[in-house]
């Protein structure tokens, strides 16, 4: 029920986002008056060009341009159920600007004020924080898991695991504070204040890495522990060292569990919100420099919905479009991880 609800609501509002018309002023005016019966008229040659297929508005009447030859426009009058009326000369013409799917998925500039909605500006920042987080959490988490399941004594394991779980239970807003007041300061001392901006994706990414570290290590440790003892003993009997057993036998045997853990971690890092909202920056920017400020999808949603968001604005609809994309990506990641576990699990007696 809830899933259907999520998809329905997000889909509905996201659809509104793509059909929402914004009127732009291309600095063109009518140079003749327009009688209600006319279907062609002339416009001034100043301003940006009007081409076939555009939807334009004169006063309150909306028209669809069927043919444009120079400054001569052929139109369908009274488009979108507006009233056909007489327009005097010298009227401003407005052009409808819709957010096309094409623009949404290919452009790299996100600036709602001037009608630019290119999702890559936000996705690039999200990808960057996610990749940094995985680069931090993957090696650390996997080695911690190998240590805990293969080397540590029962006593060490039972003390370290709860500590790592505490790390997982801390609210993300606390991590946000940590990223801003500690990690950013640390990065700025190491790399210099002029190279690292106050808000940057590197510090947010590293802290997300710390956040998902317990997730990776505990899921991987479960996977490693599930590998039967007989396999290890067989390896030892063949003369393998402890390290060889761990890396050549146990890790490959637990591969499906490890892969699932990593994918779940990616999905978690992707949807992480408060850390990036606090530490990554407040302004969409298409940049691949981790020391620059950039806004992620989640961070953008939080920032623009922070105030009293009006329900009819394109901003309101845009958060649903972003949300839908985010939901689909994380859902796919989660489904993949479940499939991997199911399909590639090696069953031992």
């Amino acid at each position: 029920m809830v899933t259907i609800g999520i998809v329905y609501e997000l889909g509905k509002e996201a659809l509104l986002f793509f059909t929402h018309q914004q009127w732009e002023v291309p600095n063109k005016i009518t140079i003749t008056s327009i009688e209600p019966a006319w279907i062609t008229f002339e416009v001034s040659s100043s301003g940006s060009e009007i081409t076939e297929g555009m939807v334009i508005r004169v006063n309150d009447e909306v028209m669809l341009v069927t043919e444009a030859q120079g400054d001569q426009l052929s139109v369908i009058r009274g488009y979108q159920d507006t009233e056909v009326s007489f327009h005097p000369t010298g009227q401003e013409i407005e052009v409808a600007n819709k957010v096309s799917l094409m623009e949404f998925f290919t452009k790299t500039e996100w600036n709602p004020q001037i009608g630019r909605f290119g999702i890559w500006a936000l996705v690039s920042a999200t990808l960057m924080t996610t990749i940094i987080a995985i680069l931090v959490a993957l090696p650390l988490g996997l080695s911690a898991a190998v240590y805990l399941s293969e080397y540590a004594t029962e006593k060490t394991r039972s003390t370290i695991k709860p500590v790592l779980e505490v790390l997982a239970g801390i609210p993300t807003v606390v991590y946000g504070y940590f990223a801003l007041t500690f990690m950013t300061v640390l990065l700025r001392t190491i790399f210099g204040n002029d190279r690292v901006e106050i808000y940057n994706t590197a510090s947010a990414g590293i802290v997300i890495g710390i956040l998902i570290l317990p997730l990776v290590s505990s899921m991987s440790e479960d996977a490693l522990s599930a590998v039967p003892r007989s396999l290890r003993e067989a390896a030892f009997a063949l003369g393998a060292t402890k390290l060889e057993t761990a890396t050549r036998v146990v890790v490959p045997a637990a591969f499906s569990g490890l892969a699932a853990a990593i994918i779940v971690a990616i999905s978690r890092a992707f949807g992480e919100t408060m850390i990036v909202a606090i530490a990554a920056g407040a302004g969409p920017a298409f940049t691949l420099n981790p020391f620059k400020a950039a806004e992620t999808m989640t961070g953008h949603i939080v920032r623009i919905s922070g105030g009293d968001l009006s329900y009819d604005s394109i901003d309101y609809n845009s958060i649903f479009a972003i949300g839908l994309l985010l939901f689909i990506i994380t859902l796919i990641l989660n489904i993949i991880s479940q499939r991997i576990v199911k399909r590639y699990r090696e069953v031992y007696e």
Partner: protein
Amino acid sequence: MWVTIFRGSTAIGIIALLVLLVNIANGAFGYAMIEFEVNPEELTEGEIAIEQLDKDALVQVLQDNVSSGLYRRLENDKPFAERDHENVHNLVIEWVVKPQVAYQWTLLDSLLNRSEIQREAEEEFPGLELRFVSWLDTEFITNPQSGDPIKAGVRTAILGSLWTMLIAFLFSFPVGVGAAIYLEEFARKDRWINRVIQTNINNLAGVPSIIYGILGLAIFVRALEVFTSGSIFNPGQLAGNGRTILSAGLTLGLLILPLIIINSQQAIRAVPDSLRQASFGLGATRWQTIWSHVLPSALPGILTGTILAVSRAIGETAPLVVVGASTFITVDPEGPFSKFTTLPIQIYQWTSRPQDVFRSIAAAAIIVLLLMLLGMNTAAVVLRNRFSKRI
């Protein structure tokens, strides 16, 4: 050599936790340079401390130093004759002394370089008072939110958090446990629809929390506005705003619902089948078996899972920001239809401010939040240990 790497990685996790905690403490305590608009010593001509003045003298100080309009307004709020000593003292601090933080040091600095700080303080801020400030004190917990960092407190935020938690719990506990009972005891596992539901619930647990916030905004705040703003219950009133405690609580309830279902399912599954069969053997119906045998034995597990889920809800920030928690409220929430703010949102707001002093009170608020979480988790562990041996 590899072992060292493995061990080191594990240590990094623990070090990260320690650094995190130290960092918070570092912000929450430390020396601060307090600047006064009027130095308290001048008020008493340096003879005694301002706290030792009696009430009449304090009222006199107030009368001498504030405009007559303000004095009359304070008198109108509550006559000075009826105010107690502490209240008048607070008024003097608030309106005459007006303390402000000019500069502050972190806890580590304060402990390690004490003498240097004292020297620096005398050189750069002559005449100001150097004080060791604990931003976390009883006043911080009992004061309402305020724009002035010295007076700001978290009472409104704590109450907001408790209210939303209560509503989230009331909504998701019955629904979640009901769903778990259905899935475990009634649903036939071989029917595809039940498998789809099960996969779905597992997937929902992995959906980013902000998605729930957007959903709450669309459904509870907007579509059900007449209900969540409470205007349906007082028809005379103007349509209110749906950004209320109720909307937030329901959103969080939705968020923790999958967690509660999964945890309850595990708890119910752990009840041995022999118990059910014994009950059936004595002629009990299916519902009697569930109500008087399965549920009582599964209850500790269910409660533990629920507490953990609710403690997840208490730390959630993103969905509430989207649902529209107001950030500046000085009045306590009165019921489900009030506007509200919560502890994590307060932390977020204070952290986002550029001034250091707001970071300090954010750190103090974080300590309060972590203590609340610690309390709930301890309760969960105690519950688990007490009841786990019974079966």
